[in-house]
């Protein structure tokens, strides 16, 4: 650390580490390649920050800085040059298996479960030289969008620690937002990457279903589960997707596709891009400040030559019922053996959900999956006329810890349902969706937007998202976590 202080010329630790801690991956990569910092020093900086901030943020369940330091020491100059993430620390939601490390899934049930091999995406990042700093907190088994966890604590929002980080990938969002790692992996079954990313001022991506293999990730609902990515910038997100988007025969949903360079589209002109603006559901019953921010984004995109095209989504009234009807029987099936052996270790909340799954009929489940197919066909039809669809990421900003329900326009809604109201649908259809910040609410909390694309057309999302990011009009200040 002394070498770092001398090299960076800072008098105080805080100044030096803050600049590094909130840098994006591409900037850190530049520093490493310019020999201004080593991967081992980066690990030290982030390890110190995790030690300093984890008690408040509750981001990490398991910290592995020693393993990260060993991996950093083994990296060669060639390794550093061959990969966009070599020497870069990251974290993964505690559903991803990391060989030799405990995978708790945020539950007492898995308190002693040590992974014997890496999940597919962890193996990809390991071979690319990325450094795993540990496993992040979550809503137990990803069942819930608030991130509240009675065993490992509830992650708070970096912009206001009295507010929720959101979930279920709460720890992954908090870890990046508090400057404890520059990127993290999460899972998204109804918005569990995109919503917490939006609530914490980050970029969150749920790729097309089948794009990133889920092998080695504790399942919640096979039909809806997606691996997702949380980063500070759109370019970082594109770089990581380029590493983890591959075919894996162990994942039945995995799709064989040619290797893509997702960063290709960054910086491309958006003139002529057709952007769908939903005329129903997505701009309804929302915080007016969020809607105003989205209006400013629409104006900017139009100024840049994009064409705004109204689109109408199918009847959305039953979408949450359809999603729940698929989720709970699949979760019950996934947990069947553990319920028999360790049933008493589950939280009351999750057991209640599993009991519900027990009492639904097979016909209900199949009908729900047939509805999902109609949603897919109807959404695909919208993409005949547009290239990308723009919506708010969430209808509300981050809520206070302990909030049970929100009320908007006289309608009460469970806070978890409100957080994921605009994201859940695209887990059913499987379309790629990205959330990113687009303004700061007068209450000092991030506002997010969501971009949705055609199957396997993540490049169009990155193209539009990068335009919104690079123009600077929608940038938000960093959270003041070090004061």
């Amino acid at each position, binding site marked *: 650390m002394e070498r770092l202080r001398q090299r960076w010329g800072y008098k105080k630790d805080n100044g030096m580490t803050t600049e590094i801690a909130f840098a994006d991956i591409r900037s850190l990569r530049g520093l490493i390649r310019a020999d201004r910092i080593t991967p081992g020093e980066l690990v030290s900086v982030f390890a110190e920050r995790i030690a300093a901030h984890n008690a408040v943020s509750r981001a990490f369940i398991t910290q592995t800085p020693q393993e990260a330091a060993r991996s950093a020491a083994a990296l060669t100059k060639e390794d550093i040059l061959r990969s966009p993430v070599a020497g870069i620390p990251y974290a993964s939601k505690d559903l991803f298996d990391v060989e030799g490390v405990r995978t708790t899934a945020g539950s007492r049930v898995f308190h002693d479960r040590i992974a014997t091999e890496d999940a597919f995406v962890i193996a990809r990042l390991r071979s690319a030289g990325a450094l795993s700093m540990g496993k992040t907190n979550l809503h137990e088994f990803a069942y819930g969008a608030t991130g509240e966890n009675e065993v490992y604590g509830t992650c708070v929002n970096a912009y206001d620690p009295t507010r929720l980080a959101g979930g279920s990938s709460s720890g992954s969002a908090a870890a990046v937002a508090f400057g404890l790692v520059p990127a993290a992996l999460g899972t998204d079954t109804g918005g569990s990457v995109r919503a917490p990313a939006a609530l914490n001022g980050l970029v969150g991506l749920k790729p*097309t*279903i*089948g794009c990133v293999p889920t092998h080695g990730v504790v399942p919640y609902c096979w*039909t809806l589960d997606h691996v997702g990515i949380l980063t500070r910038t759109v370019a970082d997100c594109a770089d990581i997707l380029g590493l983890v988007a591959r075919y894996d025969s162990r994942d*039945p*949903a995995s*799709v064989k*596709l040619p290797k893509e360079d997702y960063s290709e589209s960054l910086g491309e002109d958006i003139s002529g891009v057709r952007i769908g603006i939903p005329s129903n559901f997505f701009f309804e019953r929302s915080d007016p400040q969020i809607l105003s921010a989205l209006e400013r984004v629409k104006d900017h995109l139009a100024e840049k030559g994009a064409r705004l095209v109204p689109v109408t989504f199918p009847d959305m009234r*039953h979408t949450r*019922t*359809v999603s*729940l*009807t698929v989720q709970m029987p699949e979760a*019950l099936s996934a947990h*069947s053996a553990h*319920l*028999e052996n360790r*049933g008493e270790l589950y939280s*009351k*909340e999750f*057991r*209640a*959900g*599993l*009991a*519900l799954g*027990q*009492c*639904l009929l097979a*016909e*209900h489940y*199949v*009908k*729900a*999956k*047939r*509805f*999902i*197919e*109609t949603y*897919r*066909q109807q959404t*695909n039809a919208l*993409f005949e006329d547009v290239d990308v669809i723009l919506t708010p990421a969430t209808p509300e900003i981050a809520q206070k810890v302990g909030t*049970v329900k929100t009320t908007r326009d006289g309608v009460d809604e*469970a806070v978890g349902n409100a957080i994921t109201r605009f994201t859940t649908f695209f887990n*059913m259809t*499987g379309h790629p969706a990205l959330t990113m910040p687009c303004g700061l609410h007068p209450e000092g909390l991030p506002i997010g937007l969501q971009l949705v694309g*055609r*199957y*396997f057309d993540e490049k169009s999302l990155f193209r539009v998202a990068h335009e919104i990011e690079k123009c600077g009009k929608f940038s938000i200040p960093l959270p003041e976590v070090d004061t």
Partner: protein
Amino acid sequence: MKPLTRSTLEGICSQMASHDWSQAELDELVDPRLGIITGFQDLLDELETLRKIDLGTTAPALGVQKR
């Protein structure tokens, strides 16, 4: 459709293959008091509405392909 009763759920759990659910967990499904599950009856009512919607020959959703 008549409202769900605990005896129905007890019958399912004792007469069909099922995990062991406590009386409190079954109570919560038919008469939510703890706020853990809300609206199971509403969910069943909505599922009954969906069941009656004819989706023709639409198959259940499987994998997706590039379009």
